[in-house]
């Protein structure tokens, strides 16, 4: 384990930034939202809370070109977007967002592998930062997330210092930079970690969501409560676009000067034209779309992949314009459990 003073974090990040593309959480002033950006001059870093936008977009961008079709001299060619080589570093990721990546892995790294996602995943060295200031909307502990330790390297902030514990082989790549600024130490920081875990588990959202629905699709699908929960859903894509685990996308070709570009971009199951086919959208009303999203996170994904499709980051809880959020769904489905038993 490595230890450095709080003041020398800048020196460490600058050292990393010299060798790798480095992304850190930033917030430009009070009115602005926080998100991960290139380290640059290291100004406006935001380390005290969860960011408004997570790290998903660094691995699965909102829009990316996947191929180009070119016609030249009467010949037609397909050019797949090249995969970038070399490592990059993401510093300050929260454990919930990193659990989100593990959720995306189950989808994108299953056969057939998504080569663009895979390349970014392999290139990304993720340094987590312990969540010392959880929000009332945090409920990651309900999904087995450890807010004090995650990623390739786990950083934890204590009163005067940062500790760095290397958790994976990939994390070892940063040993030269860590050694240049930090000292190795045998300090026992487990008590600090326990404090962070205990604080997160006591957040109101974590307490409200502790009884996750453990029912099968058949038992939850037709519950009348879906009408009430979805009644004021606006049908916007805020929850899906801020979610660390939402992975649906659409593909579209557009004209270029010498052919066409194929782009893929985030889609949202909340939209009325999601998966629209010649026969129409299979989910006709907002209730069905709303139910799809929450059932996917809490039931289908678990049935198919073994883990929940929610990581408890609380972004949808904070940002839903109609407050028709995950905690309310979990609690209502929990009541459904009581009714059934």
């Amino acid at each position, binding site marked *: 384990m490595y230890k450095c003073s709080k003041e020398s974090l800048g020196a460490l990040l600058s050292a990393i930034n010299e060798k790798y593309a480095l992304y850190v959480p930033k917030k430009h002033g009070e009115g602005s939202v926080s998100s991960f950006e290139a380290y640059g001059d290291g100004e406006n870093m935001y380390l005290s809370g969860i960011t408004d936008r997570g790290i998903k977009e660094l691995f699965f961008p*909102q829009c990316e070109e996947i191929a180009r079709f070119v016609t030249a001299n009467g010949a037609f060619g397909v050019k797949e977007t090249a995969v970038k080589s070399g490592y990059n570093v993401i510093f300050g990721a929260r454990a919930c967002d990193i659990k989100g990546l593990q959720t995306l892995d189950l989808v994108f790294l299953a056969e057939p592998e998504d080569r663009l996602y895979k390349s970014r995943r392999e290139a990304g060295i993720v340094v987590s930062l312990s969540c010392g200031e959880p929000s009332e909307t945090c409920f990651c502990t309900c999904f087995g997330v450890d807010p004090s330790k995650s990623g390739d390297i786990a950083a934890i902030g204590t009163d005067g210092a940062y500790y760095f514990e290397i958790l994976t082989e990939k994390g070892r790549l940063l040993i030269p930079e860590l050694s240049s600024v930090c000292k190795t130490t045998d300090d026992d920081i487990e008590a600090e970690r326990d404090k962070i875990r205990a604080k997160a588990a006591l957040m109101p959202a974590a307490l409200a969501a502790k009884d996750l629905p453990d029912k099968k699709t058949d038992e939850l699908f037709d519950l009348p409560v879906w009408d009430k929960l979805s009644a004021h859903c606006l049908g916007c894509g805020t929850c899906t676009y801020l979610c660390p685990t939402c992975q649906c996308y*659409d593909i579209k070709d557009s004209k270029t000067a010498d052919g066409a570009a194929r782009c893929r971009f985030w889609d949202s199951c909340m939209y009325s034209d999601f998966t629209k086919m010649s026969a129409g959208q299979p989910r006709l009303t907002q209730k069905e779309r709303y139910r799809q999203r929450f059932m996917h996170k809490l039931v289908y994904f678990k049935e198919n992949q073994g883990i929940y499709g929610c990581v408890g980051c609380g972004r949808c809880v904070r940002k839903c314009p109609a407050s028709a959020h995950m905690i309310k769904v979990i609690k209502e489905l929990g009541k459904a459990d009581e009714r059934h038993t």
Partner: protein
Amino acid sequence: MQKQNGTELKNKAKQLLQNKTVDRVAGFCAGEFAYDPSPCVFYSAEEIEENMIYDCFCSPNFSKFLVKETKKPGRIAVFMKPCDTYSLNQLITEHKIDKDKIYIAGIGCDGMVDVFKLRNKTGSAILKASCDNGALTVKTPDGDMTFAFDEVLAERCLVCKSKKHVYYDELLCEPSFETDTGRFDKVEQIEKMSADARYEFFRSELSKCIRCNACRDACPACTCETCVFGESSSGAESRENANEFEEKLFHIIRAYHVAGRCTDCGECSRVCPQRIPLHLLNRKFILDINRFYGVYQAGETVGQIPPLTDKNESDPEV
């Protein structure tokens, strides 16, 4: 701060159900946190007693939601802040809401809290919050904090255009007036920028857009059955964000489409997860309309003809 408290509203709601003025009441259900009430429809006095609340976090504008609600049989009662009634008038004018199916009880308002602003101020978890006597008290893990109301009010409330209800069946507060709180100041400031600086301001703000469409979906002036940005054959689908131009196209087209009909209710900026000051585009159009055609407030009365629909010899474009 809200002028009527939850108990007064509950009693009124129960009374309206009991005397059969309406068969359901729209209001707010308590949320999971201090600040996340859900819009709800209540059918019985018991439901009202159990779940209905009203406080300084009950921000959503109920008018658009009545478009769907009034397609159902029966009559619905709604408590409305002054600003909501402008949107309502506009929707009645556009034949989107049948006024025989609504019963509007006007409630006084001194503004609603902006939770994002509040979160910036507290810097830690908001465990409880209550508004009282012009101040907001918040319980956090680090202790209680108190804020003067104008420190945490939403921008749209700080520059409130009117405390006057322009539509109501019954007024639960004292009648009040339009206000002048300098809501065009920021627009005028932007107008004074150089063209390049102005372009850069909007480019930088709009480039934050993630195309979630929340602004459109919350906007009471956006009531098209099918939006051009939700129709794949239009070539401008609701989600594509292929380049920065797409975002600007979306917001500028939307601003033009609601020009003359936008009442400046501010829902667009309230719901934006990226905190883009979308209302500034709309306000610029409102200010231009005021200058070119005389002061005009959309939604002031039912049946008014918007200057962009009307044509007169005195119009500057003639």
